[in-house]
């Protein structure tokens, strides 16, 4: 359980580039500089959460609790292949089509 206070500054340009890679986003150098500053401002503000002792406090992921919502497994009407593909940027033979995933 690492409820430790994060460092200041929280993130540098290389961290921003790393998080951008994880997010599949791309920034030029000017954007990296700006996002580094803005994210540091926000993270510095968020740091006030560390003031609170949350030892033994259960996390809430949903406000109104529900557990194990089941329904009968009966087949129903769903989208046709044409409807499902209607918004696809590219398709072929009833499938979504993408650029190469594994380079040959």
């Amino acid at each position, binding site marked *: *359980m*690492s*409820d*430790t*206070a*994060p460092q200041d500054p929280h*993130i540098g340009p290389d*961290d*921003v580039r790393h*998080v*951008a890679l*994880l*997010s*599949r*986003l*791309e920034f030029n150098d000017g954007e990296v500089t700006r*996002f580094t500053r*803005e*994210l540091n*401002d*926000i*993270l510095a*503000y*968020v*740091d*006030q*959460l*560390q003031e*609170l002792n*949350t030892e033994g*406090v*259960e*996390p*809430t*992921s*949903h*406000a*109104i609790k*529900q557990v194990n*919502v089941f*329904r009968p497994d009966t087949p129903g009407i769903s*989208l046709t292949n044409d*409807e*499902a593909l*209607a*918004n*696809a*940027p*590219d398709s072929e033979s009833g499938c*979504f089509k*993408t*650029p*190469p*995933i594994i*380079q040959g």
Partner: protein
Amino acid sequence: MSVCDKSALEISEMLAAGQISSVEVTQAYLDRIATVDPGIHAYLHICPETALTQARQADERRAQGDGVTAVTGVPIALKDNICARGLRTTCASRMLENFRPPYDATVTARLRNAGAVILGKTNLDEFAMGSSTENSGFGPTLNPWDTERIPGGSSGGSGAAVAAALAPWALGSDTGGSIRQPAAHCGVVGLKPTYGRVSRYGLVAYGSSLDQIGPMTIDVKDAALLLNVIAGHDPMDSTSHDVPTPDFLEGIDGGVAGMRIGMPKEYFTEGMDPEVEQTVHAAIAALKNLGAEVHEISLPHTRYAIAAYYVSATAEASSNLARYDGVQYGEREPDCKNIIEMYTKTRARFGDEVKRRIMLGTYALSAGFYDAYYLKSLKVRTLIQKDFLNAFESVDLIAAPVTPTPAFRLGENTDDPLSMYLADVFTVSLNLAGYAGVSVPCGFSSNHLPIGLQLISPAFEEARLLRAAYAYEATAGFKGLRPVR
């Protein structure tokens, strides 16, 4: 007086009495939109042909007396993050510029089944991320009360549409205040139902544990009527609750005598606009005059709500928005050599605020930071919810401001994302706690900008909430006021 000045309930009564047809009402709104909306930009897309077809069908339905409901033939506007089969649903994002959903959101289907007429889709901050509509990928909406100011957000298009009589009523969605805040800034009623009261199926996800669809209307009775149509359990949304849906109009005039109303001291802080503070105090005094008991209460973790919200909401957003990869729907960058390049170049279509939230959320969920940020925010969420639970042991409702200031000027907060986030200080707690809240017009600033009173109820007590809002509205004298234009 034009039909466009009427409330939805009044239009419903006129239709029922045969005083006007749905085609006439719909055409009146389409004409007004064509004249007035270019100066407001409440709508992203207007659907004249499908609206008039629906209106003709509604008129036939009424003529035959076949399955007529209170909303048969009544026009409505939908926030453009709510799916409507065949109608463009863009979320104000370049990413979804040409997306036409192959299915209806449950709320849309309920409205269609009841015979409502969809006028069009309203503007928002891209993917509902923002408090001003300035983050729309297609240009901001202007506040009908002062077009140099923002209408609030993210449901700013819906708020402005109702305020400017470009629709009798509209649906919005509220993740951190996105119904209540624009309602306050536009001088209309905005209701965020309890999480789980209304199905989220077909609402494009931003923060799934916080998002909730709700009515934006010209008065409280319209909000009750619209909630009647959209509320209810839906097997397509496993987070929608299987609880009975009462008739929210029934007993709405029951008054507030003996009702215990809590005034949280943390919501009347230094730094808030003095006119907002005075106006909200006066509104609470009016509730007292109507027979409510007013008690000062404490919600001690209020000051941590923004931080907890912006960590948990962005974490959910970063995951929800991973689906925009250019494969199944939405835009795709053409001519990419491989799939990684295609993902990355395609996602350049997101606006800056969406990218910022994806980055913040991804960081908060990433290895080494998950406990310090995301998990911590969920624990603080528990503390914030407990504040409300404790308060509701001694009061029936909570009364508070909606916003710390009236509507700000376009561009005033765009260079500083954090200052924009702080505008949500009085609204995000409610989403974290999951309870219901409503914004009701309660006065104007000296420069004629609307101010809202926020009332908050425990889970699934919307009937109580609407009863108090209606009692206040009936006495306050701000009902149905619209800017002249």
